[in-house]
């Protein structure tokens, strides 16, 4: 399984609206697929593809069928994270802005796989301060000894 930091050429999917990254992966129907080679610092022209949610397969399976290795996206619900990972795809979440800029940041190693990927229940409280949190299911931050 490849990773986001692999230096061999790989195919990446980017959900988008217009020329910007789609803020919520679950709403994405339009994808740019790009072949990128970080070693040569080279990206091919993005090719636009559309995924139809009314048709099989699921988005994760579809991306796998499109020979995608990883996904660069912004917000992504844990259920999609799980589905993509189950298909062996890596995910870079929390990336926002113009697609060209984002790809450039990724080539330069400024986006990392841990980038704001959370929501799986393992993270700590989402509020700036635990006292602000009104979500009773919110996990407590780890206590310091």
């Amino acid at each position, binding site marked *: 399984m490849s990773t986001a930091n692999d230096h061999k050429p790989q195919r990446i999917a980017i959900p988008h*609206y217009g020329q910007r990254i789609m*803020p919520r992966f679950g*709403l994405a129907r339009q994808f740019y697929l790009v072949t990128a080679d970080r070693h040569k610092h080279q990206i091919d022209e993005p090719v636009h593809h559309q995924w139809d949610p009314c048709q099989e397969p699921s988005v994760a399976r579809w991306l796998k069928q499109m020979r995608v290795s990883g996904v660069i996206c912004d917000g992504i619900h844990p259920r999609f994270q799980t589905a993509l990972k189950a298909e062996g795809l890596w995910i870079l979440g929390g990336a926002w802005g113009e697609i060209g800029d984002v790809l450039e940041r990724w080539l330069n190693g400024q986006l990392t796989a841990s980038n704001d990927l959370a929501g799986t229940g393992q993270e700590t409280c989402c*509020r*700036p301060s635990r006292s602000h949190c*009104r*979500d009773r299911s919110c996990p407590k931050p780890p206590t310091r000894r």
Partner: protein
Amino acid sequence: MNKTPHQTLEHLATILDSVADGVFTVDSSMHITWFNRAAEQITGFTQQEALGRPCCEIFRSSICFSACPVREAMASGHSVESREIDILNRYNREIPISVSASVLLDASGQATGGVETFRDLSRLRALQQEVSEKYTFHDLVSRNPAMRKLFDILPDVAASDVTTLLQGDSGTGKELFARALHDLSPRRDKPLVTINCGALPEQLLEAEIFGARKGAYTGSIEDRPGRLAQAEGGTLFLDEIGDLPLALQVKLLRVLENREYQPLGAKGPRRADVRFIAATHRHLENMVAAGTFRQDLFFRLNVVQLAIPSLRERPEDIPLLLDMALDRFNKHYGKQIRGFDGEVLNLLLDHPYPGNVRELLNIVERAAILCRTEQITVDLLPANLAPHSTGNRRPVSGRPDTEQLQGMLIRHAGNRSALARELGVNRTTLWRWLKDCNLG
């Protein structure tokens, strides 16, 4: 003392930061121009991160690209109020919120952008979930004291392996009780096998329950295990036991007494390691008195009797069941129906439900299938619902006036047969009344 514009803005910012609801404003190109403290807390994004960004990239709601409330308000000039949606916060957690939006106008009345306020419903949802879980027991939902009492004793009855008789009207959920008893029992890893004693003629029923050897009857070309054999080690649920023919009652009695039975055509008896649960909507005591049900079998079955109240005896459960049903069918049919229209709710709460929970579920399922909006409206209810639901709404005595007729016609979604039934008149009379009122 007059404040400078700068002081006024600062004062406004202080006020907005003090409110518990999230507030943000956007310019006409939907970029965020203001983001208050509560908005930071709910979304997880700081004001610094949010200002200048397209609002859909910060708000990340389920309807940003399909039914944006701010765009709707700006396009129509009317406010959008309390729409329940969800957002994905910075940490990819889905947060239910209630959102309202209005258009922002300058001094000359020109639209300059929009304002969105939103409230975190996580706590409310958590409480709703807690209430729902509190009143739920193995797929059974109730807050009725009699039902809660049954839920309380169910684990003890289940653990005891004793034969249990479930008594309740059709549609009260006897099979769910049987399932709960099985799931709570030490036999839970073995099968729960159900047979409806009223569904088959006597000869077939005997073979179905006890099994048959090859050649036992014409066309019996191989050994056929009965439900008793299929339930070995587990539970046999005998539904509608009151419909069991007298001849088979004797055979069943033998199994209950000696744990032995003889398949059709078999030379010797077989042992049965099975727990029995029987159910009926009939009054077996009356049947015993009438000689149509064996007294000895009745006593064998009636070791523990659980009387399940009908839905009309527990009207407090109707709202809970409606919520549960809507949730279930939303998931099943992939719908996003948020609730029932006020009039529908009144009709559903008033309805006597002769078919009990099963009828309620059927009504909600039908409406959910047909519903194309976020709310179930009166036209999605079956036509026969309203006339039966008039327990509190007596049939109108005499001829109603034009306004009353018009209202009733709307309530019945134009269904004249249903309206005629409610009024207690035939369709011809109703047609004449409508014609006289120019409603025909």
